[in-house]
């Protein structure tokens, strides 16, 4: 049987506020356990919450960026359950009146098409603390530094139909919240966490199947794997005539396996009700305008500008615009590099490959956009050949030299572009290879001729100790040998 895959995402985005959503405790990462847990965060008796304005501003900025309605009157609710990382015994969240209403995000797919993914809503809520399961005499340790960190939970409609689409959406959202500056985007620290709802239905059917939720995926790779894994699991069950159980599953990326978390879900009844310690939050036009004024250029706008300003094609423009730090790196490179398309090729080519190979983000790159731009400028003005440039890049990456010019100088990579000197070398080499010259001149097929022309390049590069400008060599050769 053929199946349609139906995927919806829930994304927890930690907001980059200085303080928690309901207390003046710092949210800085990496502090000693429980040193950033105030009386309010610890749910000491009699303490009360007071909401952080910046959390609302960030949420509204997000709403504007995903073309959403802003909740003019949002209400906090209590979601009741017991867990040691949840000090109050309830999570303060927004159920029926979220700060961000329906919106959408357009994602670009590999085949060049665009797909619209609808946002159901996004609400503000508090994060829980952390349980540390190392052995404390068979006990679990609780660190409440994270408790009360503001989150927006973004809930999509089930509009995605493949792992590719889900990952494209996730990456787009990651780029969006990073560009907005409302989230540090550091997935390894849990700043963005993805829950994936997956169901299958017979191809073309209107009726949705039973879904499962796979929780807390914190990398795009795991997300892709987890979806593939879950789709396969469900397909096996369905094709054996079985039924999918609605449940939460935990995916283990290292082992590529998943298991049910049913034990935790059992008998859940969250008993939501409006939090009586908090009043409705009213967002007026002025507040929305102040959030709008803070909006930076968004990825879609940036993509359009890159195409216009730098003459990039759609594909390159998208790859460079989705992520704010990648975009900034590219623009810095382009501004020093004289040739924007060449700059784009280097950022998407050599730089990206190297980042991938070393599992680094662009922010962690040991080379700056200025350094790469200076190198690109030297390629553009023929000072260095592209093979020489790779050596320069390598040196800059490894910190052997401050800038392209210094490395070119130190390693003697400057290419010879003096036409007179190059002509002399060509004459000398051609004189030493009369048979090949005759063969070339007797050949009619331009393709073969072109290939044969390459045969002269080796000796020429050797004669020039690798510093001859290959482009000029080609021109001279063609002229001398009679086009």
């Amino acid at each position, binding site marked *: 049987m053929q199946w349609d895959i139906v995927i919806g995402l829930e994304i927890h985005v930690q907001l980059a506020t200085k303080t928690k959503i309901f207390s003046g405790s710092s949210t800085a990462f990496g502090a000693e356990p429980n040193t950033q847990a105030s009386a309010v965060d610890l749910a000491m008796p*009699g303490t009360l919450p*007071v909401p952080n304005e910046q959390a609302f501003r960030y949420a509204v900025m997000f709403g504007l960026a995903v073309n959403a309605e802003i909740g003019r009157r949002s209400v906090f609710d209590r979601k009741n359950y017991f867990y040691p990382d949840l000090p109050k015994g309830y999570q303060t969240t927004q159920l029926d009146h979220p700060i961000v209403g329906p919106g959408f995000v357009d994602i670009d797919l590999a085949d060049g098409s665009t797909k619209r993914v609808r946002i159901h809503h996004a609400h503000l809520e508090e994060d829980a603390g952390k349980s540390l399961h190392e052995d404390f005499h068979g006990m679990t340790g609780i660190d409440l530094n994270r408790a009360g960190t503001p989150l927006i939970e973004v809930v999509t409609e089930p509009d995605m139909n493949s792992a590719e689409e889900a990952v494209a959406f996730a990456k787009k959202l990651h780029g969006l919240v990073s560009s907005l500056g409302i989230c540090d985007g550091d997935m390894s620290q849990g700043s963005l966490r993805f829950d994936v709802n997956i169901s299958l239905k017979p191809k073309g059917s209107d009726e949705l199947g039973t879904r499962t939720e796979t929780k807390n995926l914190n990398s795009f790779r795991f997300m892709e794997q987890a979806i593939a894994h879950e789709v396969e699991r469900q397909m096996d069950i369905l094709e054996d005539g079985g039924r999918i159980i609605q449940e939460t599953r935990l995916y283990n990326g290292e082992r590529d396996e998943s298991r049910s978390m049913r034990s935790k879900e059992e008998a859940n009844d969250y008993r939501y009700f409006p939090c*009586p310690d908090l009043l409705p939050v009213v967002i007026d036009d002025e507040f929305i305008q102040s959030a709008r004024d803070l909006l930076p250029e968004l990825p879609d706008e940036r993509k359009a500008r890159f195409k216009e300003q730098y003459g990039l094609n759609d594909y390159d423009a998208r790859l460079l615009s989705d992520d704010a730090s990648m975009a900034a790196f590219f623009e810095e490179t382009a501004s020093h590099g004289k040739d924007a398309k060449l700059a784009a090729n280097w950022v998407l080519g050599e730089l990206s490959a190297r980042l991938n190979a070393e599992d680094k983000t662009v922010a962690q790159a040991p080379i700056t956009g200025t350094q790469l731009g200076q190198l690109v400028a030297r390629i553009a003005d023929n000072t260095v050949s592209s093979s020489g440039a790779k050596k320069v890049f390598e040196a800059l990456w490894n910190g052997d030299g401050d800038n392209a010019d210094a490395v070119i100088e130190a390693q003697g990579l400057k290419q010879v572009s003096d036409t007179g000197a190059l002509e002399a070398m060509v004459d000398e080499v051609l004189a030493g290879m009369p048979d090949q010259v005759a063969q070339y001149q007797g050949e009619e097929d331009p393709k073969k001729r072109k290939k044969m022309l390459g045969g002269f390049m080796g000796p020429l590069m050797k004669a020039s100790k690798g510093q001859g400008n290959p482009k000029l060599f080609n021109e001279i050769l063609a002229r001398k040998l009679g086009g």
Partner: protein
Amino acid sequence: MHNKSVAELSRDLESGKISSVELTREFLDRVKAEDQQYNSFITVTEDQAMADAKAADEQRAAGNATAWTGVPFAHKDLFCTKGVATTAGSKMLADFVPPYDATVTANFRDAGAVSLGKTNMDEFAMGSSNETSFFGAVTNPWGLSSGDKRVPGGSSGGSAAAIAARLVPAATATDTGGSIRLPAAFCGITGLKPTYGRVSRYGIIAFASSLDQGGTMARTAEDNALMLNVMAGFDPKDSTSVDRAVPDYTATLNEPLKGLRVGLPKEYFSDQLSPAMEQQVRNAVKEYEKLGATVKEVSLPHAKLAIAAYYVIAPAEASANLSRFDGVRYGYRCENPQDLHDLYTRTRGEGFGDEVKRRILVGTYALSAGYFDAYYLKAQKVRRLIQQDFINAFKEVDVLMSPVSPSPAFVQGANTSDPVTMYLEDIFTIAVNLAGVPAMSVPAGFVDGLPVGLQIIGNYFDEARLLNAAHQFQQVTDWHQKLPQ
């Protein structure tokens, strides 16, 4: 000295007639000598009180005194006091010493008042008789001569009994459904529940957040005004506190009452009210007429639904508010928990008393899947109807007057077999909390030697008018001066 009001003691301190050290010593000695029979205190902070008294005397000598500098008082044990045990009357918090002050606590500290300790109360303020306290029932100083021990009313029974017994001249209290007014009435003292949001709730251990309000208890209306001057005001730490100017509540105490429009809600003079009680209340209303007030009957048509709405809303909020007592970060923790579930269920099963557990279970039930609309949502709608009743009534009159309770203080144990019988003690007080308006209980006579309270209900933020009305009544009556035998 111990029969004097806060206002009188403040004047004596100012004139140098007595020092705070002497005064504090006298009250502490009274607590030591007499409180065994009332059990009105859970904690007495003798050393701290004497140190504070000494500091207060120095403060006054330096010329930096407020009306409260050096005046002894006490806190209901629901107000967090930094460094002093705060139990909420529960085993759960029997050893809890908060490292922070409630805003109200800090306000009294800043004013130089001398706290003698923490008064007994129903566990987590859930009760109408002060019989649910983990630290034992409180005995009403009134009616002891009959040989029966009577309840002081609850939940602020310790504060009320201590004032009636002249162990302190004033004490803080809280009122969620009548917890200031009922004990004030039963103990023959004066108490005020302010408008919701007038006094910060920060650091007051929560029972039902949308109903809880800190308030005042003393013998006279004037002393209540002095207390409210210290307690009222906006607090940035409480999202539900109101940013609104605080008047000097003593400034308008002597305004004449001529033209005051008094409404008598007919639903509060029903057949649940004992005829003897009704007579006392009507006599009090006659005094107001003599003072120039006009009186008319009004209606609060949804008043009869107040108890039902309250016993959904208050337990629902409480069920979540009390989830934080889980044995993890503070408070009671069961011995040798086998696993997490065992830690939770035994800590809470052993740490909470029966009435608290009943309310948590009722609240959990009312919020659970399938019942939310029928109970919680319905109760919230009825709450609006009840609020609308008050808004309508205050279009016609300035204040409402009624009895505080259907009958006077009852004998300990009389109402403990069925929780609902106990709940009905609050039949005349609960609607006020649902609406959030202010109300007082003022001593207005006796039935069978037991005090009767007159309830005066005001419009939102009209505390000054209530205090004025109560003060003028106390200029022409002496019910508030009577001493228990």
